[in-house]
């Protein structure tokens, strides 16, 4: 039996797509080789499926029925006002902007950050034979053989390469907008890298949005985060990919000594989302705080899977994820905290909670601790609950109409995660965006 014969239609189509577009993908010979190797890896692995522990609730092999043609050189006609409208409250945040449309940098919407010590380069430029890209782009040391990462390496067309020099503090957030506009379904593959040298500080927002009229597409995005000693990064991802769209995201973060990584993910209005996060403590005394809010309705599927690796002593990790699931939505949370044998004084806490608005909604969670050191403080938990009827009654007895009481309870539930965002303007913007979607969720309920 040959490999190919056991491959699904989508898997075969991905391999064929690669052959078709390989020549048009950016990069010199070395990159082309890396892409080829990656598609080979993918061909051997296939799409992740439910028999793999990390994918047991998100079976891509059965969920991805077809592979869309890769967006290589899509044409688009857009205006700044369309983009601002799509950004909702994020548009009002004073930020340096870098805009990508259908997997390609759109320089006309990018504002040039003129700041000493900050380098921002579109990946496609860096990949040119004379460009600055290094083999770091194809480094798979953290994830090993991950099919989704392999696909990302094979197909990546563009993204943001950000480097902040030693001690530089970014004056305002950097907003990376990844918009989809293609009227036909396309596969968009993005690769970003955020490198903060020693003591550098930044806020980076990734917004993944569908513009009005965009067809449901597929996205594979990877962001590689490297924090030097004492660096601080606030990293926000806002995923509003659109109905029936699929969105596979990978964050790889390595944290240097005493660095601080604060991450937040808002996910809503997206057909199928897998947010994979791998965080590795490389230097002692570093802190990690990853939180998120996810809102699912209809048959949406939102999966957050993270692995936090305490490879060195004295680091702290916190994760808090809150989801609201309506209709037949399916939420998944898998969180694994590994404490390596020498990683004494590790401190890890993890919590995932879902609010179930419908008896047909589903929440699967697996918080996991793998501890090989003895002097550690680690805890985790997961809950799924319905709206508390007693609380609802209490609020109604105060005159608050039932729909409003529900909305307030749901909002406050989600609010606990959103409150983790330290930047106030950003926190308020995200809360508003979440609230807009909550109204949609609660209105649909009896």
């Amino acid at each position, binding site marked *: 039996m040959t490999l190919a014969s056991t491959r699904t239609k989508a898997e075969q189509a991905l391999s064929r797509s690669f052959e078709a577009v390989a020549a048009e993908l950016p990069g010199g010979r070395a990159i082309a080789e890396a892409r080829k190797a990656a598609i080979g890896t993918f061909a051997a692995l296939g799409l992740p499926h439910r028999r793999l522990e990390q994918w047991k609730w998100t079976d891509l092999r059965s969920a991805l029925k077809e592979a869309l043609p890769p967006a290589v050189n899509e044409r688009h006609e857009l205006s700044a006002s369309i983009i601002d409208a799509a950004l909702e409250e994020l548009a009002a945040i004073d930020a340096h902007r870098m805009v990508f449309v259908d997997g390609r940098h759109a320089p006309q919407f990018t504002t040039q950050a003129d700041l000493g010590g900050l380098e921002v380069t579109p990946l496609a430029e860096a990949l040119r034979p004379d460009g600055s890209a290094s083999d770091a782009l194809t480094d798979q040391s953290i994830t090993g053989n991950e099919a989704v990462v392999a696909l990302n390496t094979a197909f990546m067309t563009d993204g943001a390469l950000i480097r902040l020099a030693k001690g530089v503090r970014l004056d305002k957030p950097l907003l990376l907008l990844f918009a989809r506009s293609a009227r036909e379904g396309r596969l968009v593959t993005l690769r970003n890298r955020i490198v903060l040298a020693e003591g550098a500080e930044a806020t980076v927002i990734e917004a993944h949005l569908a513009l009005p009229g965009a067809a449901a597409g597929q996205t594979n995005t990877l962001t590689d985060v490297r924090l030097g000693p004492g660096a601080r990064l606030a990293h926000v991802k806002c995923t509003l990919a659109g109905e029936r769209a699929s969105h596979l995201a990978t964050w790889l973060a390595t944290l240097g000594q005493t660095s601080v990584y604060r991450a937040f993910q808002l996910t809503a209005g997206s057909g199928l989302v897998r947010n994979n996060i791998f965080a590795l403590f490389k230097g002692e005394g570093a802190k990690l705080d990853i939180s998120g809010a996810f809102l699912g309705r209809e048959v949406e599927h939102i999966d957050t899977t993270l692995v936090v690796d305490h490879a060195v002593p004295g680091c702290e990790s916190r994760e808090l994820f809150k989801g609201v699931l309506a209709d037949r939505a399916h939420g998944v949370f898998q969180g694994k905290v590994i404490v390596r044998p020498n990683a004494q004084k590790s401190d890890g806490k993890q919590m995932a909670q879902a609010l179930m608005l419908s008896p047909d909604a589903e929440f699967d969670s697996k918080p996991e601790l793998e501890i090989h050191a003895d002097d550690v403080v680690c805890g985790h938990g997961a809950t799924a609950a319905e709206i508390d009827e007693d609380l609802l*009654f209490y609020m*109604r*007895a*105060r*005159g608050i109409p039932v729909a409003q009481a529900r909305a307030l309870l749901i909002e406050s539930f989600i609010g606990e995660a959103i409150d983790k965002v330290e930047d106030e303007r950003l926190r308020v913007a995200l809360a508003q965006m979440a609230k807009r979607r909550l109204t949609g969720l609660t209105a649909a309920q009896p």
Partner: protein
Amino acid sequence: MLEIRNLRVKLAEEDKLILSGISLEVPKGQVHAIMGPNGSGKSTLAYVLAGREGYEVIGGEVLWNGEDLLAMEPDERAAKGVFLAFQYPMEIPGVATMTFLRTALNAVRRSRGQAELTTPQFMKHVREEALGLAIADEILKRPLNVGFSGGEKKRMEILQMAVLAPTLCVLDETDSGLDIDAVRIVSAGVNKLRSQDRAMLVITHYQRLLNYIVPDKVHVMADGKIRKTGGKELALELEKSGYAEFKSKALESA
């Protein structure tokens, strides 16, 4: 005027009769006390007036200003002026007390056809009332009732009552768990609200509260029935004799 006529209530999920024919009238401008041993059905009566689920009315009626209270949703009742100060106030994580008060007040004002208050008007109004109840500003910023002491929760109930300005006030054991200073503060808050347009039903297990909130009438409840009605002196009698007289029947029937 609150009119309760032969009200019979059972648990919705079980065949357990809790109120076995309550009749009571509280005219506007009056304060009536309901006293009775634990388990006699006082809270059930309060909940049924406020519209809590889990109870089934199998007989009788409740009229408030001539309208059928039992046909209304809980928030409609609040709009009509009904307020229940809970025996066990709920904690609402993530909702700041101020936000909660404002949401409730605006909802009630809207439903009564009144304009919403501006933010400064609202803040001033709440702060004034809070001051009288010795509730610190800092507490108003915290999530409602979360981490509040028993006394703080009870004072918060009275603050909500003062802010929402209801016309039918049902207070369920607002004094339980309070020390004497707190009873005084709470009572002063309640007395301030006594007026010709308000009817109040003060439920308590102990006579002590009624030294401060002096009722027009006292009803003794046991086994889901009003067993005796009298003036304020009835509370003092009960203080001496206890509920033994009423309890004995409960034991016999048990």
